[in-house]
Structure formats: C-alpha cells, structure tokens
C-alpha cells in the first residue's frame, strides 16, 4: 500500500521541460577592449552552441535570449514586437540544421547585429552604467512569470543565466537587489557566468541568494566547455551532480546616496536603506533622526568610517544589509 502511494508521489518529481532565459551582456566597450581575451563574435559561437545544446535536451525545452546592451536591453529571442511571418519566408531552409536551432540562432545573430549597428552610445552613458543588467533581469523575470502563467500544468522549470563581462555598476544596486529577491521568492535560480574580469559583487550575491551557480572561468577561451559542464544541467540533474559552488561571497552593498560600494555604512532603522555618511533625514522614507551619531572622526577610527557603537541604538552598522 505504501509503495503504491510513494510511486504516485514520485511522479511529481520527474524532470520537466526547462525554460532558460539567457541574459547576454553585449557591452561593446568591454568586448572590443584591446585586452579582451575573447571577442564577441567568437563568444557568440560558443553561446549559440550552448543554446542549441539546451534546446536539444528536450523537445519542449524553451529559451529566451535578452541582450543587455549599453543603455538598453532588448529581447533577441523570441522577438515580441516584430511580426515573424515576413521573416519566415526570408529564412532559407537548410537541410543540415535542425529547424528549431536555426530559428533561434538567426534571431539572436540578427538581433545582436542590429544592436551593434545602432549609433554608438556616448561616453556619458558609459559613465552612468556599464550595461543594463538590472533591466534585463526584470525583463527575464516578467517573461518567466508570463510563461508560468500561461502554462496551466505548472511543469515548466524556469531559470536565468547571466553571461556578463562588464564590471558592476553601483547605480544598479537597488534594482538588481529587487530582481534578486523577486527571483528568490518565485524560486527561480539565477546562474551567473562572469566571463572575465573582476568578480561581479551583486551578481555573485544573486547566485548565492537564489541558489544558482556563480562562476568565473579560468580561461575565457574555453567558454563553451564551462557552459556545457556547469550551466547546462537543469534543476533535476543538479540534484545528482557536483557543480561549482562559491567559497566566499562578497556581501558588500552599495549606498543609496552616492552609489558607492561600502564595507560598513549607516542603515536606516525604519526602511533599512544604506548610506555611506550620516544624514539626519533618511532620503528614502523621510524618517528624522533626532540625535547625533558618534562620528568616527571623534573616535579617531580613521578610514573605518561609521564603525559601530554598541552603546548607541543608531546608527547601526551592518556588513550584511542585504540579509533579509
């Protein structure tokens, strides 16, 4: 009798179709930097092969690709705004390629070509933000939400993969954190592959909080192997596999006032906003602090700005303001 029941229950844990949302960082300033170990067009070949591998896994595996460009973020596949019937006639069928792969690959390649043809963004914009990771994450989450809603059976297993090269833009801290918590709530793991460069602090936290995978490959030129080995397994396979984890996570946050990444800062006791320097009124929730903090200069703590003072209830310092 028990075996009958358990067998019924086990059916619910089968591997299901996967919805993978890939966010590709297409920031040309990083990709075409002379020191870049991998050019975008070469990396794209790797990424396309990886997409095909994902689609090859199951016939009902789904894919969405979002380009996170400088100053814009755009769906490459599926293209929502443009009518496809016209393009369908144009694509010449190739008997050597699986049709499903071809449709996706063509859409991604033309989409990126179009993005890069656009007039180059001015330098000011570059200073503002490297690439619109937060916007792309939001788009991806919305897309997943829509896909889950339209799938009545609830069998689709979504996940997000961020392929990034740009450094963190601290101005994006709040939107990125919001995306991370939404993803955590919706049980959507965010995988992050930082193809080269410094560790991306916020995305590292994203992977940690949503139980995704964060990785910075040793050699960016072997991107495809990294993708295939670590990022291809779906949630079902991951329960059986050893996958790269993170030993150390950088939990630093960016302050809300100057968008600087801080180790130690001031936290509003009402809304938990983070500031790098003391202000008598919280800029987020307008709470007034009717006291003077023990300023670090008075305590001669030097560089350690805003060190905690156990005697005073606020301002409290926190090294992990993001912990919820």
């Amino acid at each position, binding site marked *: 009798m028990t075996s009958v029941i358990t067998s019924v229950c086990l059916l619910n844990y089968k591997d299901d179709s996967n919805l993978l949302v890939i966010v590709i960082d297409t920031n040309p300033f990083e990709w075409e930097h002379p020191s870049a170990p991998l050019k975008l067009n070469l990396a794209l070949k790797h990424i396309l092969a990886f997409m095909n591998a994902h689609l090859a896994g199951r016939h009902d595996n789904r894919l969405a690709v979002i380009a996170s460009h400088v100053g814009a973020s755009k769906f490459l596949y599926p293209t929502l705004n443009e009518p496809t019937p016209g393009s369908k006639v144009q694509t010449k069928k190739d*008997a050597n390629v699986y049709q499903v792969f071809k449709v996706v690959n063509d859409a991604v390649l033309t989409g990126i070509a179009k993005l890069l043809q656009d007039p180059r963004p001015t330098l000011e914009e570059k200073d503002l933000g490297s690439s619109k990771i937060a916007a792309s994450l939001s788009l991806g989450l919305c897309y997943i939400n829509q896909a889950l809603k339209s*799938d009545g059976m609830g069998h689709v297993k979504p996940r997000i993969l961020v392929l990034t090269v740009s450094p963190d833009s601290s101005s994006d801290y709040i939107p990125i954190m919001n995306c991370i918590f939404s993803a955590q709530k919706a049980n959507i793991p965010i995988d992050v592959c930082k193809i080269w460069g410094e560790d991306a602090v916020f995305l590292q936290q994203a992977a940690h909080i949503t139980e995704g995978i964060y990785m910075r490959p040793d050699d960016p030129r072997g991107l495809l192997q990294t993708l295939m080995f670590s990022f291809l397994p779906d949630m079902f396979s991951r329960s059986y596999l050893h996958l790269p984890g993170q030993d150390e996570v950088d939990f630093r946050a960016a302050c809300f006032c100057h968008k600087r990444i801080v180790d130690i800062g001031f936290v509003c006791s009402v809304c938990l906003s983070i500031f790098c320097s003391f202000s008598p009124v919280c800029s987020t929730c307008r709470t007034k602090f009717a006291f003077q903090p023990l300023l670090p200069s008075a305590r001669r703590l030097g560089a350690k700005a805003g060190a905690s003072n156990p005697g005073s209830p606020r301002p409290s310092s926190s090294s992990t303001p993001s912990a919820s």
Partner: protein
Amino acid sequence: MSKFQTSIHEYLETLPLQTFNRLYQKPATCLAIFRLLPPLGKQIIMSSLYVDAPIPVADMKLWFKESTGLAKHKEAMQRLKALNIFADERGNYTMNATFLEQFRNALTGGGNSLSFGLATSTPDKHHVDIAFLDDYATKQWEAILHFMVGTTEGRPPCKGVLNLLGRSGLMTGGPDTPQSDSMDARDFANQMARQDFGVPKITHKGFQFLLQDINTQVWAFLLQYLNMAESLNMDLVEVLTFFFQLGSLELGNDYSSETLTPTQTHLLEDLKAYGIVYQRKRGSRRFYPTRLATTLTSGTPVLLGSHTNPTKLAATAAARKAEEEEEDDHGFIVLETNYRIYAYTDSPLQIAVLNLFVHLRDRFPNMVTGVITRDSIRRALSKGITAEQIITYLTAHAHAQMRKNSPILPLTVVDQIRLWEIEKNRLRPVASWLYSQFNRQQDFESTFEYASELGVVLWSNQKRRMLCVSTEGHQAVGAYVRKLITKHREQQGQQAQQHQQHQHQQQHVTSVAS
C-alpha cells in the same frame, strides 16, 4: 511514455556496432537518439562533448554526488554503452568518434548530410495547412483504431496496415483482400500471414495497445515495421534514419522527396497509410509530415492537437494552445471519488475503449456515464490489461477540469484499482523441489536445518515432515540427503531397508499473501 522509450531502446540495443556506426552518420539520428536518453545520460554527453581527451572512469565518477548520483551515473552509463555512444577502454571512457563528430555537427549546423529534411525550393500549388494535416493524421490513425475495435465508422485500412496488425499480434486474422497483380515481397508476406487466419479479431495485446497514448501506439507500429523490414530485406539503417529524420521536421512545411533513397520512398508510401506523412498523390515530389511524425522523437506523450510549436512566438503559442485545448477531444474523462466516470464523447472508439474497464450505464448524445467496479476492472485484468495501463489512460484523457487537481485522478480510485490488481496476483508460482517421507524426525530436522542455513527453504511442515526447496538449493540439499541415507545404511547394515527417501520433482505453488 516509458514503455515506448524502453521499447525503442531495447530495439536499438540489439543492433550490432556496425549498424550504430552507420546510424550515427546522420546528425538528425544522433539528435533523436540523444533525446531518448535519461537526463543524466544527456548531461554526460554534453559535458564530454568538447573534451578532446578520453575521460578516466574515476574522474567521471567525481562529477556525481556520492549519495544520490552514483546510482544514476551507473544507470546512464549502462545505456550509453549499450547504444555504443561510449566505450570503456583501459579505465577511460571514450566517445564514439562518429557520434561525436555528427552530434557536434547537429549542434553547430556543420557538415553536409542533409539529414534534417530538404525543404522544397518552390512553393506548393496545392499547399495544405496544419489544420488539414491534423485532420488527415487523426482520420488515418483513427481508421486503424476503429477497425481494431470493430466499429463500422470510416473505411477499412489498407492492406499494409492489416498485414501489420496481424503480424504484430494485435489482431488475429485478415480479410480476404483481392490478390494484387504486382507480387512483391510485401504481398508475399501478406499472403503468408493470411493463411492461418480466419476472421480478424482483436487480441489481448490489441486491447492493451488501445489504452496507450498515440505516441506509444505509433512507435509500436513502427517497431513492428522494423521487425518486418528485416524480413523484407529493407535496409534497417535507412528505415531508422528516416524515422528519426521525420521527428526533426517541422509541422506545416513541405519537404522534398527527391533526396530519399528507393527504400525510403517505399517507406513513405507505407507511412502515408498510417497518417504519419501526407502526400497529395502517389509519386508527388513533396511530402508533409503530420503531427504524428513531428512528435515521434519528442520523448513525451503529445496528444494530437494540443502541441505547441516551439518555434512560434510564446505569446501566440500560449493563446493557440488554449484554443486548441478547447477543441481538443482528448481530455474528456471526469472521474469522481465514488468511482463514477463521466466521459464527454460520442466517438464509438473512445466508448469501446472505456467499455474495456468501465461498467457503462447511460449514454447521452454527447456523453456516457459509468462506474468502475471490481468486476469491470477484473474483466479488464483478465484480458491482460494492467492497472497501470488503465491509470495511464485515465490520466492522459482526463478532462481539463480534472487536470487542475493534483494528483489528477482521485487517489482512492487509483489505489483501489491497483489493489484489485494485486488481489489477482495472490498466487505466485515458484519452481521448486519437494522432499517428503522422511522416516525419522531427526533426519527431517537436520535436513531442514541444513537447508535453512543455505536459505533455500520455501516452505516446510514439521508434522508431515515435508520440505520445499528452491531449485538453486536442490543440488546441495539433495547431496546432503543422499549422504544421510548412506550413513544410515552403513550404521544399520542390511537391517532395515525401509528408509525410503523420495524426492519428488514437481511444480510447487507457494501461496504468498500480498
């Protein structure tokens, strides 16, 4: 689904290495076989696809978690080795070179194999749309099923189908079709098959067949076709390649039949009869795959008409899916916890299938009602249908309203159906040896002790000095008893020779409470 997967797997695993090497020359075939693998098997292939050196066995084990993954790893590797994708060489796993190359080609679109179907270059004057193809496929396929359950609806299927039905043991007998003037191997086989049959009649296997989902049914047909192809001297590799190629085609497009080999052209004719492909007229240069074909290698049971085309826009696809589900007549069964069943259907086929395991009560213009009883289930079980098949059928055809529940079917009913099946299997035959007529209690006891030490005792009775031993234990216990007898003889000389020890070999039926 699992049944079809195992069946195609079992079939593939019987093939020799040479056949595999030829099969793997086509990227489409590689992709299709890849999709049939268990999830971790797929991951192993993907992980090692771009590793150029052979992978040490011990290294690959490290990929998996000790607690949960190793069993899965073993299972997946077994499959991969059976399909000749991986070979174990001196402690290293190496991937089949042909498979490696062609699978890479499949992913990157390289090579020049034209295995994904050559699209016709000119537009078709008589273009048909997806709705037409669905209609065509459903009509053709249901004609076969209707014929099987003996309803008069639709025209009887053609000779090739009848032959296949007879061959596969789904039906016995074949009608006396007029002798065709062209006497090829197929007709010969047909004639041979006809000789020992009278009236066509559905078999137990046929009933089981009806309960499967369409995908399984199609594969069962195709596997039978493969078995037949061997005897008809058709090239197995070409047939399989064509099947797998069909699975990779896109619904609603027309493909050119010019690149096909003569064998495959012949195959096309047969598949047309099953509703798997559509061709406007015999010898036409183009053919359309139907939904039956495009979902062949999907690995999931896809009901006719409720399939979303992955290349379509997500938004429109979702809308389309909802539309299709409304007109889709496959989810029509409502099952209640009180064992009552309401089926919204007027198709004689569906009703005939339901009648296999449901006690039908009332019939209305658009629905039938009935109740599942112990008798109705037992009737089905006696026809060789298993509880699992009934449950799968009910799940697959559950009404949209039922699908919102989790689990879809009421647990009480599902469990009861399983229990009714277990009830039937209270007796389990085990081949065994019976030792009886021990003259002395101590002889019996020492033999019993010896046998129970070996763990081969199936049943024993102290009072009647009877002992039942499994076949594996017979040799040892027999030798022991013989030794006992000779010992007695030595001790007692010629005194009493009444120590008779009989061994009876008989098929003993041990009753096991379930």
